[in-house]
């Protein structure tokens, strides 16, 4: 996506946000402010950039909160129980004379096709 498109997209998101605010509060001030703000955005490049930066920062803040919550939940509710079962049923570390294992792998064209 080009930078101009990104900036315009974020102005549109701001408009949408202000529209939602108006829908909930039905305050004329929101409508007036929104109208002036959006009009200025289209004529004043610097405001458009500031608007874009605002959304980027907000995204980062939201991500810094939601990401640990999401992955924390995955860890606790998925990884932890599976891991505990894994530890119960998985055999103990072997004490063989070597930790080298034979490699049973043919390196041909098909070997490179897959990311596993």
């Amino acid at each position, binding site marked *: 996506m080009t930078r101009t498109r990104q900036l315009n997209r974020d102005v549109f998101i701001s408009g949408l946000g202000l529209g939602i605010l108006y829908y909930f509060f039905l305050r004329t001030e929101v409508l007036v402010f929104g109208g002036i703000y959006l009009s200025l955005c289209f004529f004043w490049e610097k405001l458009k950039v500031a608007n874009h930066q605002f959304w980027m920062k907000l995204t980062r803040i939201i991500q810094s909160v939601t*990401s*640990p919550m999401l*992955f*924390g939940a*995955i*860890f606790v509710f998925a*990884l*932890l129980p*599976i*891991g*505990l079962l*894994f*530890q119960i049923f*998985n055999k103990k570390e072997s004490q063989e*004379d*070597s*930790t*080298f*294992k*034979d*490699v049973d*792998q043919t*390196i*041909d*064209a098909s*070997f*490179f*096709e*897959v*990311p*596993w």
Partner: protein
Amino acid sequence: MKIILGISGYFHDSAAAIIVEGKIMYAAQEERFTREKNTAVFPANAIKYCLKEAGISLHEVDAIVFSEKPFLKFERLLETYYNNVPKGIFSFLKAMPQWAEKKLMLRREVRSQLKKIDPTYKKQQKLLFASHHLSHAGSAFYPSPYQESAILTIDAVGEWATASIGKGNGQHIELLKEMSFPNSVGLLYSSFTYFLGFSVNEGEYKLMGLSPYGIEDAAETQRFIQIIKKELVEILTDGSIRLHRKYFTFEYGLRMVSDKKWTQLFGMSKRKPEEEITQSHCNLAFAIQHITEEIILKMAQTAKALTQSDNLCLAGGVALNCVANGKLHESGLFKNIWIQPAAGDAGGSIGAALAYYYVHHQRIIGEEQQFDTMSQAFLGPEISTSEVEVFSEKNSLKPRRFSNPEDRNQYVIKNVIKGKVIGWVQGRMEFGPRALGARSIIASPSYPDMQKKLNLSIKFREDFRPFAPVLLRQEALKYYGCSYASRYMQFVSKILPEHRLNLTLDYANDSLLDKLSTPRSKFQAITHVDFSSRLQVVEEESHPFYGLLQEMRQQSGDGILVNTSFNTSGEPIICNMKDAYQCFIKTNLDILVVGNYTFTKDHQ
């Protein structure tokens, strides 16, 4: 014409390489362009450089090969977390967002990055994946001068493998044995790097340089060796190892080891980065270096037994341990040893591309191929004459231009002999961690305080760090008895006893600083405290150092110079004219030489 683009990235040391009909044409590390050392970002600049120099667009590339298999790596991560829950939540929270965003969908991510580089790139083009250790093995064997060879790759960890033994024959590589995570020689060494206060993945050189300051016969050193063998690692007869995992936290933590347990074990706490280095730190460095050498030697013996080859090819980060390589050479186990100069993950880009190419094509090594197909590792960008002129004009600089290299060399050596330190930029940039004559800092090895001067006022790094010599074949033979090819600074050799100076009786027990200031040979700056040097032997007349060393011999009697990388501590080696000039200005370098142009600070 078959053109293959090899890529390594997203994990460590990103790089790209272009192979044309099996020949390595262009290769560069991304860090040189982004100026972020060991960067893991997608190597967009390195790819752009390779494509531009090759004069092709991405759609003309026959295949793009990535040096790892991301799903296998992810499987290893998950299984490691399974094995360690409930520990590991912080590491999981740190690692997973990156995996979810980019690494897990690597095919899509790489394609979108390639599209950004070149809009002509088509999704239908082949995007392939080699495994990490196959990439290392490919980078070690295919450019080597051998038709058949044993292959040994040792590093921290790839997907699952941490070390592998293989055999190369003609165009075929067969991996025979693999050691798996968490048993890893690289991670064991990095654990000590961490405990001794250096940065992991970067400070391993420092640890290696520190080890000769340790006192081998000291009771403390022997105790450390015993503790490591008894408590931390079991070394099995074939060189494979078993780490005692209770002492290590790298599987699930944000640190390498349990600081508390290691403090109890060794009777000393983890060194802080700025803390003074004591004799105990040196002894511990000696102990782990000694053990690493023992492991590598045993692994090499197993490789020999499995392959019965006279040749050995080495790669992987641990293969950059030139002290261990020197011992391996001394052992006489293999007649010939060849080590990939970019043995770390950057070299994986070359190995992955070559491994794929040779699945379909015959590999022919001509009788005339005396060395290897690495083009002396000069695979990166070159600074052209016009670039120097444009830069000089733009910055109102007045460099001196020599009409021929002979006059330039004469001028440079005259100044080197006077004790001046020179920034030396010639031809194409090196691929790999070592400066080999294209982006180097050179000086006379004979000045007793040169090591200190270079470390403290030019490189801005720790005063104990040693410097390497670059020398002609005759000098290598005369001073080191070195008759083998050591083109890439990969082997450490000791100066012959007749060229050593007499030491005080108590030298072995001297402190680090006392040892450092004790005269050891007439080439004090490049003779480490144990009389060792990391040799770079120049044999070919086309080498950028050849004429310079001849001139040095003519003017001083010995064709030996100090050669260190053209950068300051923590920065990647310089790449272009701007980097070179900036480094020249901010350090105490006396002269900058770029091609036939010389810059001095008096005339700027």
